[in-house]
């Protein structure tokens, strides 16, 4: 592959970036990396901070919490506590990658394969993303959401909208469909449907007044099958059933949960995704160097940064970049040069074609299953992993496993369990709705391993929920046997 110039130095122009992206593209083709079209945007550091707090979405509705997080991140950045990420990339089509203006040429040369080919291909190929997000519809939807909320602010007042959004945000993590497939985002359809829903709501109110004078017919029991089929999506339940919400508030609930849904796959694939992107930036940078397209100075700077990114401090949290990069490299090694140990523990991929395995894995797994399937004993030894346990009330951790071959399976399953959704997100569902009596709502939190909810926050969040619901709401943590452990 001959190219006209060799990149060197630290200055860059917009054309340079385009050229680098094209070069990467040609290299990436050899590895069959399938990507959405790329749109790179050069931004200032302030805009980067903006992006952090709004989840990377270039368009978002206005809310004070975004302002607050901006201030926090800004303060941290200015005090040197956090350095800014070099890039933010969101899975939309076209795939938008934000590049900071302060990056040197080498940094941009690193960021472009990482974001535009690494993350891009991952979000196009991975099953969770395919199933739960529509990259080509999300931006339109955000614009629709922003305009609608701004409209509501004008009509109903800033305070009321802010109060509603505050309450909805508190329940954001419980506004997800985890097991049902969500309906597709479509902003045009959304607008049309919205108009219909608002009209229907008005009609219902008119009719309700009319019918209140008539003898009561049997009411449709909206919540009957709950006992058999608890509703896990609180925001959905509120949107459909909250007795006292205005139609526009229901629309807001809908918006908040649709956006939360959009980010749902990202939480479950963080290790895989970052590892994938890191692997590919490492690979493509080396390819570019070997093709004579970047000089040694740039390569060194990239490798220096790369090393920082995958740094894993001891006795601390696991760096997803480090873990992911190591995991993918292990897969490649096992494909190309399996040892006996590898053949014993990963027989399905030992000796297979690495590129095929890569694509297959990327498309069909998420962090939990990825680690369960592909963690190697060598990685456990390299990282010197150990498992520690404690229980409530104990003042120490007990070491239960260390990195040795006989503990491998246990370490692997425990590590994989850490990335399970329930490890960080509590399972809360609506189990009863007293529709005929006092309209009380009963929620159960399934407490695994004796876990309960953080009390202060739960109480505050419950207040928000009560405000939205309009009637009494009770929340309890129940254990495996079904008995109540804690009430909030």
């Amino acid at each position, binding site marked *: 592959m001959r190219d006209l110039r060799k990149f060197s130095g630290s200055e860059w122009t*917009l054309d340079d970036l385009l050229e680098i*992206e094209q070069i990467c*593209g040609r290299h990436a083709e050899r590895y069959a990396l399938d990507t959405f*079209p*790329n*749109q*790179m*945007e*050069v*931004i200032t550091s*302030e*805009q980067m901070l*903006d992006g952090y707090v709004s989840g990377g979405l270039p368009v*978002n509705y*206005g809310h*004070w919490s975004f*302002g*607050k997080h*901006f*201030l926090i991140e800004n*303060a941290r950045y200015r005090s040197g506590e956090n350095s800014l990420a070099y890039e933010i990339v969101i899975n939309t089509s076209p795939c938008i990658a934000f590049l900071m*203006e302060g990056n040197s040429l080498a940094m941009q040369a690193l960021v472009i394969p990482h974001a*535009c080919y690494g993350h891009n291909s991952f979000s196009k190929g991975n099953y969770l993303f395919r199933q739960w997000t529509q990259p080509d519809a999300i931006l339109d939807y955000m614009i629709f959401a922003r305009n609608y909320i701004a409209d509501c602010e004008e009509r109903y007042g800033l305070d009321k909208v802010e109060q509603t959004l505050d309450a909805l945000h*508190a329940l*954001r*993590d419980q506004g997800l469909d985890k097991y049902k497939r969500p309906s597709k985002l479509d902003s045009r359809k959304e607008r049309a449907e919205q108009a219909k829903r608002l009209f229907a709501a008005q009609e219902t109110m008119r009719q309700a007044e009319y019918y209140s004078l008539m003898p009561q017919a049997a009411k449709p029991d909206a919540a009957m099958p709950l006992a058999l089929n608890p509703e896990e999506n609180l925001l959905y339940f509120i949107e459909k059933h909250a007795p006292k919400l205005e139609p526009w508030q229901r629309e807001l609930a809908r918006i908040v949960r649709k956006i939360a849904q959009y980010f749902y796959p990202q939480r479950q694939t963080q290790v895989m995704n970052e590892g994938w992107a890191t692997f590919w930036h490492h690979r493509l940078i080396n390819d570019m160097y070997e093709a004579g397209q970047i000089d040694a100075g740039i390569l060194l700077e990239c490798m220096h940064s790369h090393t920082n990114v995958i740094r*894993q401090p*001891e*006795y601390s949290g*696991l760096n997803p970049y480090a873990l992911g990069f190591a995991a993918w490299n292990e897969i490649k090694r096992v494909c190309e040069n399996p040892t006996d140990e590898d053949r014993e523990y990963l027989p399905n991929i030992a000796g297979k074609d690495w590129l095929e395995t890569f694509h297959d894995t990327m498309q069909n797994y998420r*962090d939990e299953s990825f680690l369960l399937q592909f963690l190697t004993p060598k990685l456990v030894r390299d990282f*010197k*992993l*150990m*498992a520690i346990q*404690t*229980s*409530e009330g*104990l*003042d*120490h*951790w*007990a*070491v*239960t496993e*260390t990195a040795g071959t006989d*503990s491998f399976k246990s370490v692997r399953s*425990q*590590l994989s369990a*850490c990335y*399970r959704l329930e490890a*960080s997100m*509590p399972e809360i569902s609506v189990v009863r709705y007293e529709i005929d009596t006092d309209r009380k709502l009963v929620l159960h939190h399934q*407490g*695994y391993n*004796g876990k*309960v909810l953080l*009390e202060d*926050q739960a109480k505050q*969040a419950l207040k928000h929920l009560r405000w939205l619901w309009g009637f009494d709401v009770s929340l309890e943590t129940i254990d495996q046997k079904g008995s109540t452990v804690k009430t909030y």
Partner: protein
Amino acid sequence: MTSVIVDRRLQKGKSTANRQRVLKRLDGALKAQVDKLLARNKLRDTDSGAEVTIQRKDTAEPRLILEPSSGASTRIIPGNDKYRIGDKIQGGSQGQGRGGGQGSGDGQSEEEDTFRFALSREEYLSLLFDDLELPALVKKDLLEIDETRFRRGGVQRYGTPGTVCVTRTFKASIGRRIAAEAQHAEALDEAEAALAEAEEAGDPALIRDAALALDELRRRGGDIPFLDPVDLRHRSLIEVQSPCTAAVMFCLMDVSSSMDEERKDLAKRFFTLLYLFLSRKYKKVEIVFIRHTDEAQEVDEDTFFNGTRAGSTKVLSALEKMNEIIASRFPASSYNIFGAQASDGDSFGNDSTDSSAYLRSRLLPVSRYFVYAEVGTTAGQSATSLWDAYRGIDNEHFNMATVSARNEVYPALAKLFQREH
């Protein structure tokens, strides 16, 4: 596959709208801070904005999340090179905040209780003024930055129809027409001479040509335009800086035992506003702090507001000191001299009358403006001796007001500084 690159650097950040929202939400907490800041900051610092600290609970976003130290927990930790199975590590369920954010959370660390951020000057000033209940008009006035003025200076050839200078345009057109006519007259002469030659030569073709040319010239003679775009002249404006005027403000404060914290706070607010007001009109404001009990001394800002002295009150000492400093360092010819005195009005014996006389005879003649703010008394209460004595001064360079609560500081200032100044 086509790729696109977009440069968004020039676009405004989105954070401004959300920033305003969070400031509005933090209103109460910020105002409380601003009060404390005022007590702590040096006077000059108020000009450049301020750092505030906000408790996280003021901006809490509660969530339904797990209590990490409840129940049983398992962690996988890397880098182990010393522990073995069965070892115990200190920490347990109490110390679970650190050491391992695994799992797929989005890493919102709630570890710190507070966060700090900086308010810009405008934001700080508007918060400050908010508390003082300024009428909106004046608030805007004080916050706006001084612009340079324009004065007329000459003409230029480009501009808008509104700036056309008619007389100069006509002058230019006259000049052009004279030149054009002269040119035309020359051409006519030439043509006539040509015709005469042709007639002499007797060639009918030549004669005809020459005659035609002459006719044409004569016809076109009237076509010199009266006004042409090239004549247009516009008034030009030259930017001029407002002249740099130096001012000195003397802050005289009574620090005798009768001035308590509340009175001192009122005095400080008064002086802060005064300083901001002055620095708007003049590029450089020097401040001289004089505090007095029964004797006066010039001090720095810290001592001025925080030092305590016990003693009786002798206002005259401060006025004499002010005069002394004017004479030695601030000649009235080069400086606009301002004076501001804050006191609770309690003074002994003849001090009040002596001070009043001194003020009238020695200081007011050289000052641009002198104000007296009595802190701690409400108008309508029985007047203090100082108030009584000053009341007798009838001079347009002198004014006085009472300040008994925070929200009266601005009205007092407004009363003391009417638009004319």
